[in-house]
């Protein structure tokens, strides 16, 4: 009897939950949050105050690079992989003598990537080379060195931006920010902006005349010779200095 009663109760409970379970299984578009009915699908990790959400960065790591549509191009483009290094013998124009070609083929048979800088130097150490073969190897070495240099050095900005910013910026008080740019000793005239304000040119420098209102921060952006320089300006409410 007891078992029968238990079975009946269980069946009733099960029947009650069936529609809910069925609803879940159809995975209807829900709008739920971590705290209730608005699930957050975190996009980036916050911040400081972070009481509510825990965000994740839009970092294009291996896992989500397709989602963000970005990949780390540094790993793919800038440094040639050894696997891509093919036989110098076929890559460069004039061919060496048949004797040197045979030597190279034999060495390359031991594995890919043999004919790098070290291999070329080893070849140069041979005493049985003709002058034209020596010249061929030296040319290859020069090309090898120059390609290594260009691939490993990333272009760094050679434009120097010089900023003259008041030590203290206070809301309601106008300030004058002067920006100059120099490229290998040559003075450039940068174009700058700060919010809606555009710079004016005075004596080979860009000048931003700005009166901050009810703000804590602003960013000034300058451009010269294709390079961009930015400065973060902290604004204080009273005359007590900046953060």
């Amino acid at each position, binding site marked *: 009897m007891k078992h029968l009663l238990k079975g009946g109760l269980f069946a009733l409970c099960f029947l009650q939950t069936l529609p809910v379970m*069925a609803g879940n299984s159809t995975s209807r578009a829900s709008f739920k949050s971590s705290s209730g*009915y608005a699930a957050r699908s975190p996009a980036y990790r*916050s911040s400081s105050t972070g009481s509510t959400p825990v965000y994740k960065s839009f970092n294009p790591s291996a896992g989500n690079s397709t989602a963000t549509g970005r990949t780390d191009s540094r790993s793919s483009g800038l440094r040639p992989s050894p696997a891509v290094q093919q036989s110098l013998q076929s890559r460069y124009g004039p061919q060496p003598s048949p004797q040197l070609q045979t030597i190279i083929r034999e060495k390359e048979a031991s594995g890919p990537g043999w004919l790098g800088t070290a291999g070329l130097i080893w070849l140069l150490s041979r005493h049985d080379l003709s002058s034209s073969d020596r010249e061929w190897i030296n040319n290859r070495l020069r090309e090898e060195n120059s390609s290594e240099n260009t691939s490993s050095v990333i272009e760094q*900005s050679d434009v120097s931006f010089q900023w003259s910013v008041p030590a203290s910026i206070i809301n309601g008080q106008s300030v004058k920010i002067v920006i100059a740019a120099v490229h290998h000793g040559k003075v450039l005239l940068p174009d700058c902006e700060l919010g809606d304000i555009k710079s004016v040119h005075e004596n080979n420098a860009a000048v931003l005349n700005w009166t901050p209102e009810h703000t804590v921060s*602003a960013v000034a952006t300058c451009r010269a010779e294709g390079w961009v320089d*930015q400065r973060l300006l902290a604004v204080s409410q009273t005359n007590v200095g900046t953060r």
Partner: protein
Amino acid sequence: MVTKKVIKMLMLLSVMLLSACDNQKAEFDAIRTKALQNPDPWQAWQQLNAEAEKACPEKQAFPSCSEILKTDYRNLSFSLYRKALKQHSSAALTDLFMRDDPPDELKSQMPALAAELISIAGYSSGDRASAKILAAAAHVLDRGKWVQQDSVRAAAYFARAWLAYDTQAPASLSRLYSEQHDDASAVLWRLRCTGDCDISQAPYGESDSLSPRQILRIQSLAKDRSIITVNGQASWEEK
């Protein structure tokens, strides 16, 4: 005799369950009235979430609400959320762009909403309360999904978020500059990624192309909070 008792019990249980459902419906009606009367739809949305969680807890062995009631809560929640967006609530906009995928119903409006988010963030004061919207706008500009990618503006927003105590902004900036192959600036922001800042969000390796002297110079520059970008490699040693 025994069968009769069982039938009685089952009928009693059915009545109890039906009456519980009626109570839940009445409770929902009261919650809905209160939510719709709230002049701040974002606050109403937050309150509704808490009340819905209480009424229909998610983590229970047996679901306590019918699917119909759950749908009612969801629909009300979404309606309040949409109302908050219509009223240009910065909290709602920030929340929306924190999501990897917005609700389907809002997808067509996302470009316009993204532009609104960026505009509101741009005019924010930059105080602590602005940190989230600044960071959200920066990510939108950096990601380039709903508006055209603009790394320069993204960097400006991230930097302001950092000044507003967003701890993750330095890692985001380090990654941003690293992707642009601006290794000096990437190292500068990596140095500033301290404390709660999750450095794993920014890839290592930027310093490979820099000399020891340059790295030391960047360490020195990083102490100046106003510096966002490192330019002028040639003149580093003069400074």
